[in-house]
């Protein structure tokens, strides 16, 4: 598994430049190395199709102040981020089909309401689902 990621890394050296709203995001994430995901300037949560976290990048860990080692292997909607366990977010992932939606939301990281933009990415053909998180300013962000 790890060697495969290294191999993919070599093939896509330019990929880290992708922006939050880039239309090619799904393909890039599928191909990106663990390091590339970790280095992204916005939060990335990668989940297996059953919702178990398989990658939790540096930006998200810093914002949530959660150690990735405590998060990987947990069910994201139920155990890591219960604030997403509703029809707006978890419900959309669980509905199946192709999903690429961006919504404004509020996380309550360390009990402080934190406005965020979320990008929800799911493709039945992909091996992982992704939740991208970007801070926004409270008013007019």
């Amino acid at each position: 598994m790890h060697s495969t990621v290294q191999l993919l890394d070599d093939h896509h050296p330019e990929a880290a430049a992708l922006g939050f709203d880039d239309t090619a995001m799904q393909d890039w994430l599928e191909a990106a190395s663990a390091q590339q995901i970790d280095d992204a300037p916005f939060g990335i949560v990668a989940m297996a199709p059953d919702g178990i976290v398989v990658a939790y990048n540096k930006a998200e860990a810093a914002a949530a102040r959660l150690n990735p080692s405590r998060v990987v292997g947990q069910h994201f909607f139920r155990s890591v981020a219960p604030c997403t366990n509703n029809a707006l977010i978890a419900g959309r992932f669980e509905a199946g089909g192709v999903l690429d939606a961006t919504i404004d939301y509020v996380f309550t990281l360390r009990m402080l309401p934190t406005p965020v933009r979320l990008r929800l990415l799911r493709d039945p053909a992909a091996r992982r689902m992704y939740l991208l998180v970007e801070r926004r300013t409270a008013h007019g962000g």
Partner: protein
Amino acid sequence: MVDDADRVELEALTEFLYVVPVGLLTFAMNGAIRLANPLISQLLMPFVPGCDLTDAYSALAPLMPDLSRRVHEFADWLGVVVDHERCPISQGGKLTVFSVTVHRIHGGLNTAVIEDVTRSAEQERRLFEDRQRFRAIFDNVRDYAIYTADAGGRIDEWNPSLQRFGGWQEADVVGQSLSVFFPPESGSGPSMETLLDTARKTGSVETEGWGRRRDGSQAWTNTVLTVLPDADGQVRGFVGVSRDMTERKRTEDELRRLATTDPLTGAFNRRHGQDCLDAAFPRLGNSGRTPAVIMLDIDHFKSINDRFGHDTGDLALCAAVDTVTAELGDGGAVVRWGGEELLVIVQDTTPEAALELSERLRLAIAAARVAGPDGEVRMTVSIGVALDLGQGAEDAVRRADTALYEAKSGGRNRVVFGPARRVTDRKAG
């Protein structure tokens, strides 16, 4: 500077607040949210799209539009501003019910506890609807009384069906034993305690008997008592359904009377007499009882008809039946066996007692007076008696008939004991 032990404790505290299954938030008087746990976000975001969770009043507006006013009108330093208030929200055809509690924890700070209680609200709604449904049934049934009692059989609630059923008012019945409807002195059927014991064992019991109305009059009542179990399956109480069957009972009794009696004299007809014989005489062996038949025939009945007319003949027949019925009391059944022939069936007797009774009947009929067109008419009877010899009713009737024939040929107005043994040969004066 936060040391490692503090950091671990803080992480544990954070995790606890992350997973606690109710929404918690604190906010200042101006509505500014200080802290909110993830459940707040999960619960409220679907209803406040675009909300940034900075202001409690706008975040909670879909649930409680007047929260700001209520918080500001609450003047105390601390206390309960909103107490578990149910807030229903409809969205996309789906109803969600929140429970909202707001506390003032000190002068400037408020906490809110938000819970999704949709499921329990739905259960409560169903319970309420069930209750309304049962209430409608209790209150509107016409021919039934439906009532409930506690585990000890005390009526715990009044409803209008009891008023219609027996004129009962709330003060008459609530707290009273069910035997208020079925007083022990009515003497029909098993006691209420016995009935309740049966219901406790089997789940329900049905009984029919005389019940009491409020005015003291009696009503023939069919009652079904069913156990109400509690959550552990123990008897929590009973539900009773009673139906006033007085009219039906009256009709049934009348039909039975018409089917079993002779319309002229009121004595049992021969068909029912046959049933009485079958019931009185054991089919096999010795039952420990000795039944008997007494056959009576009015002497010279044709002559009464010829001399005084058929109406007087009918009156004589009726007088004979009335006399025998009065003498017998509960001691036997009177059957009009043939034209002017009566059969008395006695359940259990001795030769002496049967003979004594027959004599009494003979003398009483001889003493009876029948009003004829030209004054009083008198009559006598001949009587044949036979006790069971273990050969059944038919044999006894045949021997009584033989004895009667003997009484006739021996001069009438006498009693003869069958089969051949003449017991008395007295002529009346």
